[in-house]
């Protein structure tokens, strides 16, 4: 088990390295660097541009830039200076100006909070709804859950967010429509907006897997033994039916905890989700790299957590 975990962690290292190399290469292919135009799109005089590029080390050969970046990142946990916001570092943009003073206000943790609340909503409602509709297959409740889950899978989160803002914020005036972290009520709309797609997806997934499980022979055996239906479902079927849900939770957690651009944009939340778009449109090289690496690290980590979770849910999954 420990060896397996060590192996998986070690496998994460080359993945992240490859990701960083590909990102670095792709960034060099982008036409226009961070200093080709100033504020308002005015061209920057060539002398100033050369000076700026020298200051940030952009005049050195690409491999040197890459190595010195990786050196600072690995040994000093330094994502480098922002190429777009003068005087700011990428660490400040991601972890906040003063992380330890107000950790809950740090952009990365704001995004993580939004993701976590949405995740709790999606799993907490999605799994029970899926299981109920599987156990009552072809009943009206099954049809309703399946129809709404199909709708939930199909509605883009920005459309849903806009509708929710309109109905609950502007029309009924029940809920605040922007910000995060001041009141509990502020959490409702962003969490529903981000969580609905996953909720619907998890409901469909757990329904499908429960339907498959309850037709297995060992469930028939359990029933034939005379166990009560409740015991059959909870003791024998539930655990196995959760495996597919656990699988998708890895990538889903990674994506949600690192922030959703759309949700943060629509609800004016100051997380790191916005960097997934603005970093590229601003040509902020170091920020692009930082954002991708944080996402990649989260993905590697949560997939590892999922792999370990398998061991507890299903002892048949053995590690070699």
């Amino acid at each position, binding site marked *: 088990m420990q060896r397996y975990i060590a192996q998986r962690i070690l496998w994460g290292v080359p993945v992240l390295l490859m990701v960083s190399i590909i990102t670095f290469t792709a960034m060099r292919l982008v*036409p226009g660097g961070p200093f080709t135009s100033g504020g308002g799109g005015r061209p920057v005089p060539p002398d100033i541009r050369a000076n700026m590029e020298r200051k940030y080390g952009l005049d050195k050969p690409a491999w040197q830039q890459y190595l010195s970046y990786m050196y600072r990142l690995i040994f000093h946990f330094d994502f480098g200076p922002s190429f777009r916001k003068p005087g700011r570092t990428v660490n400040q943009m991601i972890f906040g100006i003063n992380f330890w003073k107000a950790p809950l206000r740090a952009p990365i943790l704001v995004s993580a909070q939004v993701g976590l609340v949405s995740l709790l909503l999606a799993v907490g409602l999605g799994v029970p709804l899926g299981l109920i509709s599987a156990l009552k297959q072809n009943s009206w409740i099954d049809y309703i859950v399946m129809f709404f889950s199909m709708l939930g899978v199909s509605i883009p989160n920005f459309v849903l967010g806009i509708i929710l803002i309109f109905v609950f914020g502007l029309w009924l005036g029940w809920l605040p429509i922007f910000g995060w972290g001041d009141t509990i009520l502020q959490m409702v709309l962003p969490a529903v907006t981000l969580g609905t797609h996953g909720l619907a997806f998890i409901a469909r997934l757990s329904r499908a897997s429960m339907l498959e499980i309850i037709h297995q022979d060992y469930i028939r055996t359990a029933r034939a033994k005379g166990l009560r239906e409740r015991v059959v479902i909870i003791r024998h079927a539930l655990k196995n039916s959760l495996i597919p849900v656990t699988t998708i939770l890895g990538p889903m957690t990674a994506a949600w905890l690192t922030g959703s651009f759309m949700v943060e944009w629509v609800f004016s939340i100051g997380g790191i989700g916005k960097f997934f778009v603005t970093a590229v*449109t601003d040509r902020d090289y170091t920020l692009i790299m930082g954002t991708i690496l944080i*996402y990649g690290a989260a993905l590697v980590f949560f997939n590892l957590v999922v792999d370990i979770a398998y061991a507890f849910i299903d002892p048949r999954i053995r590690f070699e």
Partner: protein
Amino acid sequence: MAVREKAVGRALELELRGPPVSLWRDAWNRLLRNRMAVAGGIFILIIAFGAVFAPWVAPYSYKKTNYDRTREPPSFPDYIMGTDELGRDVFSRIIWGGRVSLTVGVVGSLTALIIGITYGAISGYFGGRIDDLMMRFVDVMYGFPTLLFVILIMVILPQENPLQAMTSIFIAIGIVGWMGMARLVRGQFLALREKEFVLAARMTGVRPLGIIARHLLPNSLGPVIVALTLNIPGLILTEAVLSFIGLGVPPPFPSWGQMVADGWRGMRATPWLAIFPGLAITLSMLAFNFLGDGLRDALDPMMRGTY
């Protein structure tokens, strides 16, 4: 497994019913019995018809302005979905915008299919070391955040006119979205290549390419078609997101995501500007999801209900 028994029973029943039914015929009949899938299919055909024949179907051109009647709420004979701040007909712009969404959805899905099938076929056919290495690369590709990567590629590609913008969306989506298809095809091939008929083909001297094209591909066509259909809503969404943040087709040519982006700030005064295009995105994604679901149930009864 009761599902399996039911499927076998169903096959027997069909066999006993008279004239032999081919696999595809049988799947088609099953698809037609699924009401939601049929409704989805019909809806898609309607939007596709509107998109292809937009100049004749749409009541106005997408750029026809009417400064006397700006921001008008929906009214029956003239503007059934209202007008925007320039007096352009929202309904006509939605019909025209269908061109962007459907093309990106279908062509993007085909691009991902071509890359994915080629990659998955090589990986699954050869197996072993090559397969190992190729699947590791897929892992690496999954390590990128989709939205950021699409935007990064789109920024690299030129987009001076609408056609170039569309092409760069296809390429970006193709580069980002092929991994799922590759994994699917690889899995199918790994399972199929151990079958006797493949061994027989190999013994009679059929070359690897022949085996892939003649024996392995046709036998994995069902799941591939399903994956192709279920890919489309995701791509329609990606395009809508790109247009929403201003990276899609350049205005004045409309796309649904761009219309939502332009309209949503004025939700209180002019809700129809954002709601109708938002509805268009949602309904067409819903239609493709229902159709894909129905296709899966029809093509592969064993897979019924899995997502």
